[in-house]
């Protein structure tokens, strides 16, 4: 199926930033497939993952059409390396408390829920704004993705409240996840060069202007969940500029190894 040709396109690096966020978080959430705490959650997280990978595909197809030279959604997903990825560092972190060992295979459901909450609370605002992007294809992708982000937010927020206002154990674990992950959201509000270019040509917007609305969503949910919000720190991650944590390499190794072992394979 051919991508729609649009007169004005968003900068490629901006499309890759949006696509990489969705792909890497989709890949992370897919790690729950077959391991969910209950069957309903296993299916819910796999579907969340499928939505995100679907969003990534649409964005990569659009980016590939701008790049040309035989670039496809697959070359963008499978044949770029760590410094080429433009996702938020938040999206690549493992599903476990950050101080546990790198080789640990444990999945902490609270970490998963808090990350999905913090990300989807941002994306309902971002996709809503991008519906009026001057890049018509990006606007269409945004309108589609907004509907999905809304139920991702509803799902993760429900769990956040249930775990926070639950048992001592669930409260402690979800509070630990909030403490560990919230500092990574500072990256949302520092505009990167591609975000500035996108805003300048009318395809993007000022993400920093969403901070107040995002804080309102987060604070209301934390309060309902009887959770404390840690204070802001000076730490600002740099994933969207291509400088990542040590975790992204492991994600890419697992995700890309098959495609790289069998380049050009079809089925």
């Amino acid at each position, binding site marked *: 199926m051919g991508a729609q040709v649009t007169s004005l396109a968003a900068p490629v690096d901006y499309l890759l930033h949006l696509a990489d966020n969705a792909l890497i978080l989709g890949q992370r959430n897919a790690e729950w497939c077959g391991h969910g705490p209950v069957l309903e959650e296993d299916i819910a997280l796999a579907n969340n993952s499928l939505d995100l990978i679907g*969003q990534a595909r649409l964005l990569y197809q659009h980016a590939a059409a701008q790049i040309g030279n035989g670039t496809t959604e697959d070359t963008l997903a499978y044949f770029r390396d760590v410094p080429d990825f433009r996702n938020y560092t938040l999206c690549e972190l493992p599903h476990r408390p950050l101080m546990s060992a790198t080789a640990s295979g444990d999945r902490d459901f609270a970490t998963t829920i808090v990350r999905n909450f913090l990300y989807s609370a941002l994306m309902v605002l971002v996709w809503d704004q991008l519906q009026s992007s001057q890049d018509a294809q990006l606007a*269409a992708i945004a309108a589609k993705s907004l*509907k999905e982000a809304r139920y991702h937010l509803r799902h993760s927020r429900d769990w956040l409240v249930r775990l926070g206002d639950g048992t001592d154990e669930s409260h402690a674990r979800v509070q630990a996840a909030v403490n560990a992950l919230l500092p990574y959201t500072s990256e949302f509000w520092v505009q990167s060069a591609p975000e500035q270019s996108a805003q300048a040509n009318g395809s993007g917007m000022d993400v920093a202007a969403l901070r107040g609305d995002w804080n309102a969503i987060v604070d209301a949910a934390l309060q309902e969940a009887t959770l404390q919000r840690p204070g802001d720190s000076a730490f600002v991650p740099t994933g969207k500029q291509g400088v990542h944590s040590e975790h992204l390499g492991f994600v890419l190794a697992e995700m890309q190894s098959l495609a790289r072992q069998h380049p050009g394979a079809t089925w």
Partner: protein
Amino acid sequence: MSTTLTRESSRAQQAWQLLQSLSDPEIPVITLRELGILRAVREGADGLEVVITPTYSGCPAMGQIEDDVRSTLAKAGLQATVVMQLAPAWTTDWMTDAAREKLRAYGIAPPHACASEKAGAAMP
């Protein structure tokens, strides 16, 4: 010129008739038309275009649907480009009442209320 237009529109109508009976690859009791995935058949710049809209971004059946559309038309000697249209985004509002009843009979609870705003409608 009017002859050409008549021929083209009848070709699109013929394709629409053929595609109306195509069933969904995952839920064979309902058609793509009833589900709201099949949006329109029209004459484009490079010939016949069949417009389909995914139910959700990651829908893995879209490739199969595209193949089904092409082979159904090919049997009738028609060729078409399949256009995936994202906007307006698919909504359960597009499902016909008949489709809801078929879903219920098949054992799938049909959607009865929608969390998002209503938008768009399929070609009659």
